[in-house]
């Protein structure tokens, strides 16, 4: 009997030791793969107070459409909601949202003040963790700013979920085109990033090209052939005033602002030789940056202003180069087959977008600033002129269809594509469109 109990005690202690040893060897997993799937998000209509119920719904829809277009979110159909009054509940009934597979939830309300202004408030919830992730109130603000507020809320949601700044409260300036190919009317036009608030800035009497936003937002540079001579103009969006930036001898192409907004960099063809120049906007002093018998064009500053990317045929074919802002240390960065052009340095600084022509096809691609990691994102008969969203995650460009034997077709449209290369969307414009430029985030 006693021998038996000794045995049992021994077995028990052995088991204990064993389990301790087991506990020490803790299991570890490395998860190196995942899904590319948009995050399911529930966005019930914001609550309104009687008169502004429609505005509350509109704000919800604009915001929801922003998030959906980003490709990173998939708003869940409102008809699937269990809690129909979900927008009013704080905190929400998380179980009701888990049931429909929502991982995030946005609730909010719109209040109308006595003086007719509105105040909008929202909260973003993590449905699985059952906690509030962020929340802001906007206003009081004039009612006509409801769209801007909707975009700002979408930006805040995007930022909290991805860690990256949003890009929804932004504008696009581009060239609107109508008429037959030989008598094309080109007008400068501007719209919100989602196509709303569209308006024309010029009347189409003069040919306009290559609009670019100033980092200070209120100004656009572009090239106009008013009176038959190409000149670089500055356009003030708010006042509508145009100003000739300079009357340069010979041809000028593709002016772009420096990141501090104090300079413009462009290429000038003097005596048949095209080189890169900068123009100080205050002193109007012109400085030559490159001095090479080859054709140097399409200059673009890095976001820190220290470097310039451009293209040149100095190596025999048109390729991308970078150099210091003073013209020193020129380095070729593109080495693939075909020709490269229109470099656009990402606002994030890590990538340079470009147009590539290879085997009769056009491509939009990105590479790191040192030329490594080239990836081609989209391809067509003609795609050109990539411009970055201010967060460096999305590119906009235009795509032109081929014309048939009678010169018909050839329509030209704006598209966006995100860095993953999968989420490509058309941006609806009233007429044909080319040469888009994306603004920074509005203040």
């Amino acid at each position, binding site marked *: 009997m006693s021998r038996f109990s000794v045995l049992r005690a021994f077995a028990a202690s052995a088991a204990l030791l064993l389990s301790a040893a087991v506990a020490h060897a803790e299991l570890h997993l490395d998860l190196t793969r995942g899904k590319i799937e948009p*995050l399911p998000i529930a966005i019930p209509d914001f609550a309104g107070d009687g008169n502004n119920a429609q505005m509350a719904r509109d704000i919800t829809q604009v915001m929801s459409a922003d998030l959906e277009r980003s490709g990173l979110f998939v708003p869940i159909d409102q008809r699937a909601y269990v809690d129909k009054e979900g927008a009013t509940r704080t905190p929400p009934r998380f179980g009701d949202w888990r049931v429909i597979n929502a991982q995030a939830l946005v609730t909010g309300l719109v209040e109308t003040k006595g003086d007719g202004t509105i105040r909008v408030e929202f909260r973003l919830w993590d449905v699985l963790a059952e906690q509030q992730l962020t929340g802001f109130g906007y206003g009081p603000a004039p009612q006509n700013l409801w769209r801007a507020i909707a975009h700002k809320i979408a930006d805040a949601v995007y930022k909290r979920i991805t860690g990256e700044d949003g890009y929804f409260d932004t504008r696009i300036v581009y060239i609107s085109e109508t008429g037959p190919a030989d008598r094309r009317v080109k007008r400068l036009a501007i719209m919100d990033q989602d196509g709303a608030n569209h308006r024309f800035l010029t009347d189409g009497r003069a040919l306009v090209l290559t609009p670019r936003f100033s980092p200070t937002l209120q100004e656009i540079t572009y090239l106009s052939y008013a009176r038959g001579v190409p000149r670089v103009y500055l356009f003030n969006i708010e006042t509508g005033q145009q100003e000739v930036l300079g009357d340069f001898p010979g041809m000028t192409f593709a002016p772009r602002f420096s990141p501090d907004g104090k300079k413009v960099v462009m290429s000038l063809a003097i005596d048949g030789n095209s080189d890169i120049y900068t123009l100080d906007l205050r002193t109007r002093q012109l400085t030559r940056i490159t001095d090479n018998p080859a054709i140097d064009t399409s200059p673009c500053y890095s976001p820190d202003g220290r470097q310039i990317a451009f293209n040149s045929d100095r190596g025999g074919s048109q390729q991308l180069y970078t150099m210091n802002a003073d013209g020193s240390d020129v380095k070729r960065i593109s080495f693939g087959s075909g020709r490269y052009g229109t470099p656009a340095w990402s606002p994030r600084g890590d990538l340079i977008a470009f147009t590539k022509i290879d085997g009769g096809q056009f491509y939009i691609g990105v590479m790191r600033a040192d030329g490594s990691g080239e990836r081609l994102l989209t391809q067509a008969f003609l795609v050109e002129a990539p411009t970055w969203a201010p967060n460096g995650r999305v590119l906009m460009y235009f795509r032109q269809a081929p014309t048939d034997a009678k010169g018909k077709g050839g329509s030209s449209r704006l598209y966006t594509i995100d860095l993953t290369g999968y989420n490509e969307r058309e941006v609806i414009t009233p007429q044909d469109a080319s040469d888009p430029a994306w603004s920074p985030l509005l203040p």
Partner: protein
Amino acid sequence: MTEIGGMPRRVFAYSAVFHLAVVLTLYGLIHWHLFSRPIPEETPIVVQLINVAPETRATQVTRTPPKPDKPEDVAQVETPKPKPEPPKPEPPPPSPKPEPPKPEPPKPEPPKPEAPKPPPPPPQEAKAETPKPEPPKPTPPPAKPAPPKKNDDVLSDQMLRNLAKRSPTHPTDEPPQKIAAAQPSKSSSQPVAPLGSQLTTSETDLIKQQLYACWNIPLGARDAKNLTPEFRVFMNSDGTVRDAQQLNSERNSDPFFQAAAESAMRALRNPRCQPLKFPPQKYEQWQTFTITFDPKDVS
């Protein structure tokens, strides 16, 4: 002596034979009944139908410079933690302004068929398809090859699209298997527990497969390869996650890292991935474990 209890022995034998026959008949009937019937069809799986909201596009013009109102913070609402099941009916902390129980005017919202949308049709949708089984949508099939299925769960580097043809020697075709094979879970390389009670590589791979399906990797983020949140996970014996603690939460001051950590946490909490298919008899082995979410080589 030929009778037992007044019954002839023969009768007793008959009775035994008769009982045996009854039992055999019953067995035969049951067997025939159970196995001769057609196998029942699979029970239908309930699916969630999700539509993608159409785009809005208003047409009014003339927006004055957005005089954006500096947003003020809306006070954080504390939500009662679900886990510890508060014994006292503690009222949820009141939210500051929004007066939640405001009797809203009944919003005239029957299941509205998304009518009030004057604006133009949604642009050509070449969008990434949603994962859910969807009802046949009126939109034409996307012109683009939306996320190719084969890429769905390979290394995130390969998930980034590249139209350029890859050379056959390019390493990208290998990593999936290599990673799976070359990185067995640490436990299997340390034979501390007695053989047989340890989780095998195929058992841990099964768990990884489950979690892959629930982890939305932070694709396209800057420096995504450095966003490697690590957790200690506490499991219930039924395979559900009881709790998870981030081990490197000090790095969450970086909003990218925080976003990555939260996306990982959502994978661990996602009801679609629970219970985790650990072998129940090895609960000792997996009642706590550590896990690193590491989107290698994105970028």
